[in-house]
């Protein structure tokens, strides 16, 4: 994608710069320009992924917005396919018929046509042959014409929520200025960089040239702000078309964002649906309505992920920096922003885990140049470096996890049950741990069995309560589950059982690897061991359940398994007896055996004792033993799991009348 753009870029610069000036020219680039050129950083690698990322960014913004006002989220997302002529009419372009066919890339030359026809004929022949032989062959897809480069597909993405809404005057800047945002503070949020919605706008501008449309209303606001804008990429400022106030009859609050972009639904359909499904798992308190609308009705999709709980995780709190996680630049910024006057107050109030006495001790340690009462403004750059050094070396208590808002075991469990319908599920929520001064919490769930679950390990990853779908292979969760968990020791068959593994990590800073927010690297031991521990805890819970289940199954199958070997055993015993009886009586020598044995052999000889006699006796014994063991099992494991037996209660009346209603599958008997 990038390479295709660079020529246009160079062209532009050429036309701008005077011809004389051939030396290198110092140029500035706006952030919007930078991201337009490096779309892949934000997950806009290609049209398909761009569609996925747009959906994702809009949904996450909606959730953040609703949660920030403690409202149970209701998010409606609609993707509308726009065909070419409709798109042209939207942008006011008249449909043009091709006049000079040879001009186009997909023009079929005479030779190519012959080739194609020959190929099609051959394919038909083979198919006819197969059909004659009675082989079942799948319909070969109708030969697609060569899809030209120009054939792009366009989609309108609409996302409507019941969130906080946006202040009327802020809307242009919130959408039209890259790297501006409300989520920059140090807290656990889904979005982080102030990129998502803007990138969607940049992408729409690049692919369709159409502006973004925003309707928004805040709580108790009598009007709805409607804004249509696009972005001036070179200046990184919004370019507002319309910004007006409309009537708000329904007292609606929230935001509705509409953007038209190029995309690819066919290839990213499953990714988008997976994303929605996993989002529903991790946010069971939200209600999602996902719709895909197109001209072809058979392609349409409507999925409702309904709300299963109204327990919502608390809103994550904004927290202060931990001294061990700050750098020099951050210290300078904090000093510039703080309202505190002197060093002591600054240390005490702008950081976590520094008490007053601790701050005094720290200042004493800094050296003779420092004093608690010294003014912040008077600190020299050298002194700042000293503070930074001390922060690096000194020991501080770990930050606690109060500022984090994990999904919670309850929600995680509910989400898993709701979306997967597993046979068994176990969840575990770890305590807060620290990586480079940022607290994090790992929660895990492991499920066995379920609907639409593949055999083997199915891994679901969440970071700050958003699903991660790409780059699964290198992720810490995948690696841990595949390599560091000994599944068989928990009586789980890694290859045959349908195992669902859900790991959710929340932190004030998720250490993503790579450019996109796609995966967490495996090289952070703190996180890796926390993930492993959490999964193991789930497995331990499951193991006892599995063992119980196996025991119960063994109970049910004991009698059958024992009875299976009765013919073998009795057959062997009887044959020996028979041989003995025959040889003994034929030889007619003195009784080699005692009275009992002689009697037994005589009976065998006279067919009074046969193989069946032995089998019957042994079967009776097996039954008795089975009964005793079942009784023992029942006393041990409680009444609930005792073997069920049909109980027949005699009716009070001696005479009763019945009617049998017969059906091919059952008989319904009515007593009256």
């Amino acid at each position, binding site marked *: 994608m990038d390479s295709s753009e660079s020529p246009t870029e160079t062209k532009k610069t050429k036309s701008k710069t005077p011809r004389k000036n051939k030396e290198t020219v110092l140029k500035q680039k706006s952030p919007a320009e930078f991201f337009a050129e490096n779309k892949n950083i934000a997950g806009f690698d290609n049209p398909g992924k761009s569609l996925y990322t747009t959906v994702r960014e809009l949904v996450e913004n909606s959730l953040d917005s609703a949660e920030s006002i403690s409202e149970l989220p209701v998010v409606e997302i609609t993707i509308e396919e726009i065909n070419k002529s409709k798109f042209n009419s939207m942008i006011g372009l008249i449909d043009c018929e091709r006049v000079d066919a040879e001009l186009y890339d997909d023009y079929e030359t005479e030779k190519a046509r012959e080739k194609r026809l020959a190929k099609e004929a051959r394919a038909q022949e083979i198919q006819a042959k197969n059909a004659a032989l009675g082989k079942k062959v799948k319909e070969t897809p109708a030969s697609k014409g060569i899809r030209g480069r120009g054939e792009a597909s366009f989609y309108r993405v609409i996302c409507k929520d019941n969130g906080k809404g946006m202040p009327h005057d802020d809307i242009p800047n919130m959408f039209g200025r890259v790297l501006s945002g409300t989520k920059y503070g140090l807290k656990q949020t889904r979005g982080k960089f102030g990129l998502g919605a803007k990138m969607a706008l940049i992408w729409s501008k690049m692919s369709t040239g159409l502006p973004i449309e925003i309707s928004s209303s805040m709580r108790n606001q009598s009007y709805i702000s409607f804004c249509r804008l696009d972005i001036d990429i070179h200046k990184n400022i919004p370019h507002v078309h319309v910004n007006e106030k409309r009537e708000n009859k329904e007292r609606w609050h929230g935001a509705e964002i509409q953007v038209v972009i190029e995309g690819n639904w066919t290839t990213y359909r499953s990714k988008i649906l997976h994303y929605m499904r996993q989002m529903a798992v991790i946010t069971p308190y939200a209600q999602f309505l996902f719709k895909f609308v197109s001209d072809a009705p058979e392609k349409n999709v409507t999925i409702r992920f309904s709300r299963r709980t109204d327990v919502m995780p608390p809103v994550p709190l904004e927290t202060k920096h931990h001294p061990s996680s700050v750098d020099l630049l951050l210290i300078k910024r904090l000093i510039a922003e703080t309202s505190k006057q002197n060093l002591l107050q600054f240390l005490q109030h702008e950081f976590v885990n520094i008490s007053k006495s601790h701050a005094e001790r720290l200042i004493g340690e800094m050296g003779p140049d420092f004093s608690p009462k010294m003014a912040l403004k008077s600190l020299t750059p050298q002194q700042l470096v000293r503070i930074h050094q001390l922060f690096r070396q000194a020991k501080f208590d770990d930050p606690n996890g109060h500022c984090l808002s994990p999904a919670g075991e309850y929600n995680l469990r509910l989400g898993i049950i709701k979306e997967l319908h597993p046979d068994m599920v176990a969840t575990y929520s770890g305590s807060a741990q620290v990586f480079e001064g940022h607290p994090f919490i790992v929660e895990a769930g492991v499920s066995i069995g379920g609907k639409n679950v593949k055999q083997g390990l199915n891994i679901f990853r969440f970071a700050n309560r958003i699903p991660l779908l790409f780059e699964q292979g290198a992720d810490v969760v995948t690696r841990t589950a595949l390599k560091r968990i000994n599944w068989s020791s928990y009586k789980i068959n890694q290859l045959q059982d349908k195992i669902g593994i859900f790991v959710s990590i929340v932190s004030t800073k998720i250490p993503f690897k790579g450019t996109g927010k796609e995966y967490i690297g495996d090289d952070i031991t703190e996180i890796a061991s926390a993930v492993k521990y959490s999964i193991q805890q789930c497995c331990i819970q499951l193991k006892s359940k599995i063992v119980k289940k196996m025991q119960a199954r063994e109970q049910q199958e004991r009698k059958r398994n024992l009875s299976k070997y009765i013919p*073998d*055993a009795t057959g062997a015993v009887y044959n020996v007896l028979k041989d003995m009886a025959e040889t003994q009586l034929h030889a007619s020598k003195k009784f080699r055996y005692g009275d009992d044995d002689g009697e037994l052999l005589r009976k065998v000889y006279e067919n009074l004792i046969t193989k069946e006699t032995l089998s019957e006796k042994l079967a009776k014994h097996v039954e008795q033993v089975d009964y005793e063991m079942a009784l023992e099992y029942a006393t041990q494991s409680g009444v609930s799991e005792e073997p069920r037996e049909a109980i027949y209660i005699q009716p009070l009346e001696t005479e009763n009348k019945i009617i049998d209603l017969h059906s091919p599958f059952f008989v319904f008997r009515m007593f009256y």
Partner: protein
Amino acid sequence: MTESITGSVLITVLFSIRSSAQILSPSRVKISVVIHFHFTPTLCPITAHLPSMAESSKKRRRTNTDDLPFKNKLKPDSTILQTLKDFSTSSSSSSSSSKTLTLQDLSLPFSCREVSDLSLSSVQSNIESLVLRIAHSILSGNGFAFDVPSRAATNQFYVPELDRIVLKDKSSLRPFANISTVRKSAITARILQLVHQLCIKGIHVTKRDLFYTDVKLFQDQIQSDTVLDDVSCMLGCTRSSLNVVAAEKGVVVGRLIFSDNGDMIDCTKMGMGGKAIPPNIDRVGDMQSDALFILLVEKDAAYMRLAEDRFYNRFPCIIVTAKGQPDVATRLFLKKMKMELNLPVLALVDSDPYGLKILSVYGCGSKNMSYDSANLTTPDIKWLGVRPSDLDKYKIPEQCRLPMTEQDIKTGKDMLEEDFVKKNPGWVEELTLMVKTKQKAEIQALSTFGFQYLSEVYLPLKLQQKDWL
């Protein structure tokens, strides 16, 4: 019987005199005289042709083997033979004195289970009384159970005085009406029935045969084999007494004559492959030999080399191999040879933990068959090679040595804890060296100096230096 032997021997003598007439030198005659003194008169004519064979084969090969390393250290064969003779006589005199020791002679703090050879009829009656007991038990509605001696590792015990593993008398009940033992007890009943049939008919079958009589029940041969061992342990007889044998695995070649089912076998005339060791040892008898020692070889390849080079003619010996882990027949055969011929046994195994393990199975028995260790073990086997110290001593190049795997090292360390290793300080030293250097080598590593290095230099030199432990 004796007549037939002398007959065949005479022909050999005639042949040998003819072929050796031209090259008979005074020194060779001397050797033959030396050997003459040592062996019994009936076998004497065979030995007469020994030098000639050695001589001719040597002449053929000497041309290209002079440059072999350490070749120059070799003394003339006559000297080596003298050494061997001394060793043979000393070991035979020493072993004869300690032969009588049995389990009963020792007053061990626990009772042990040992089995003995039983006649077919007594095996049959043992089975019959067992089956009658079971039948009564079934008919009285109590199901049935076998009382099977435990062959688990915890029930094994190494007796240093006997230098072998014995089985303690712990046993476990195998009831039919229990989910974990139902299968085994059904198989046990079936095996008992099959063995009973063998007893009535008086025939032998192989373990494989036995397995195929009821594949559906046994599922795989390991299961029927295990239960077969249980049964022989339970009935208190050796496995051979059950008339079930394993397929032939071991082979023997060299200066040995024995009768197999009445046919006389001369193991010098069995070609390169040698004679397969008969699976049922009870039909083997009348062993006679003029060998000075028995050479136990782990691998088929080394065995073939020695057999083809007629090593047993240069240094009179009997060469035996079981091609890896020894089977019962080979162990019984070795024991029988050792007892009847009273020869020292030298072992040539790989320089790795498994080589030593194989040595231990010959020497003090396997845990699986410990109930019959009295019949199966051959005491006083000497470890001739290839020993870990040989790797440097014979300058085996690095590329022929292999690094030991984790598993190898673990096995090695475990073996250092075993009593049969600990009783021999030399072995402990060698094994410690192996674990320390973390290197192993197969017998074939010697082939780097030429395929015949083993038979031409290594073994003669080893024998000359009496380099065994």
